């Protein structure tokens, strides 16, 4: 066993020395890489298309980012949602507007003039909305009288709000010219939630469905346009054969 590992080690050593030797034959040259800085504005197609196959949903989201440095982008979303949830025991409609702001960090090392993004980011989201309880049923474990317990309500709860943090992971790829197609997944953690009395914020625009805990998930599919503002030149050290 010891003998074999020694043998492998020596092979690796030989290969490494060969590699080092090969590199000696190269000299460095520099090429200039231009990076474009600007604003990217887009729309969420996922929210728009949902209205076609989900009759109880209407939503729109505008996304945008601004490149700050090589890797960091200032990013945000603004949107509006109108959703009716029909559960076994509740039927309610939530309407409202939300705004999210934060940053994205590009993990993707672009080669030459490529401008793609594989990013992780963080957002702080704020939403103001209203809810209307359409109907509900009374939970009665001992329904001796066999009563129909669905009650039509129509009660409106307005002036509600919520704030949350969002962890974002996504991809944005340049398809043609300045057009980008991308998608992102979001994991949300509720920070504050102004609930109505005798009801709950079971759906928060921008945050999505709330569970017993304070967590929510999100997804968007975007098409966006990049508006270049200025260019920055960076020199790259590239090794070339003689």
């Amino acid at each position, binding site marked *: 066993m010891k003998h074999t590992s020694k043998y492998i080690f020596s092979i690796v050593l030989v290969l490494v020395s060969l590699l080092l030797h090969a590199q000696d034959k190269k000299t460095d040259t520099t090429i200039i890489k231009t990076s474009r800085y600007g604003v990217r504005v887009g729309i969420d197609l996922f929210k728009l298309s949902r209205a076609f196959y989900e009759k109880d949903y209407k939503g729109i989201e505008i996304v945008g980012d601004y490149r700050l440095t090589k890797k960091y982008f200032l990013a945000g979303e603004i949107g509006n949602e109108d959703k009716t949830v029909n559960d076994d*025991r509740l039927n309610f409609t939530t309407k409202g507007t939300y705004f999210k702001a934060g940053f994205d960090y590009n*993990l993707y090392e672009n080669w030459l003039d490529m401008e793609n993004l594989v990013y992780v980011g963080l957002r702080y989201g704020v939403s103001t909305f209203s809810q209307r309880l359409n109907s509900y049923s*009374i*939970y009665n474990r001992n329904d001796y009288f066999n009563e129909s317990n669905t009650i039509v309500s129509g009660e409106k709860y307005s002036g509600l709000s919520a704030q949350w943090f969002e962890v974002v992971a996504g991809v944005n790829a340049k398809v043609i010219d300045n057009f980008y197609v991308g998608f992102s997944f979001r994991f949300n953690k509720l920070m504050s939630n102004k609930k109505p009395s005798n009801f*709950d914020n079971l759906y928060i625009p921008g945050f999505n469905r709330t569970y017993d805990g304070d967590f929510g*998930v999100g997804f968007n599919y975007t098409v966006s346009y990049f508006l270049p503002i200025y260019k920055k030149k960076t020199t790259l050290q590239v090794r070339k054969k003689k």
Partner: protein
Amino acid sequence: MKKLLILLVAVAWSSSSCEKDDICDSATSTTPRMAIDFYDITNPSLAKNVTNLVIVGEGLETGLRFNGISKILIPLKTTTDITKYRFILNYGSTDTSIINEDNLEFHYARSNFFISRACGFKSIFILDSENPYTLTDAAEPDQMWIQNITLVQPNILTEDETHLKIYF
């Protein structure tokens, strides 16, 4: 890239494990029933067990049967502010002389409270302060077996406390 992958897995996992509020937990306090304790009329501090007590709601054929216990829970109607019951003691006994039926009706106000997404709402009942209950003899008079009733707690919010005491 590795970081991104870990994050995506974490998101997928967390979203799949959040479905816990889809089923109404049986431990959740929902619409309460009225709790009635039975006491001995000759010794009012002593709990007394009922024998084959069947209570039948107005307009219903089948009743709720209680035997050998001194504490019962009876449901109230959640669609009207009044619930009428026939309280039949020694139901089905071969000695028909000990079978005794009394009518007891409850008057109350209802409010509905939100519990959760899975459970919906629950009703709670506040017994009428002027006229919480009416005790009458059966349609075919057979003397009353219920000697006295005292109201302990007019607010029926949970099943954990006694609302009414019946002496017989």
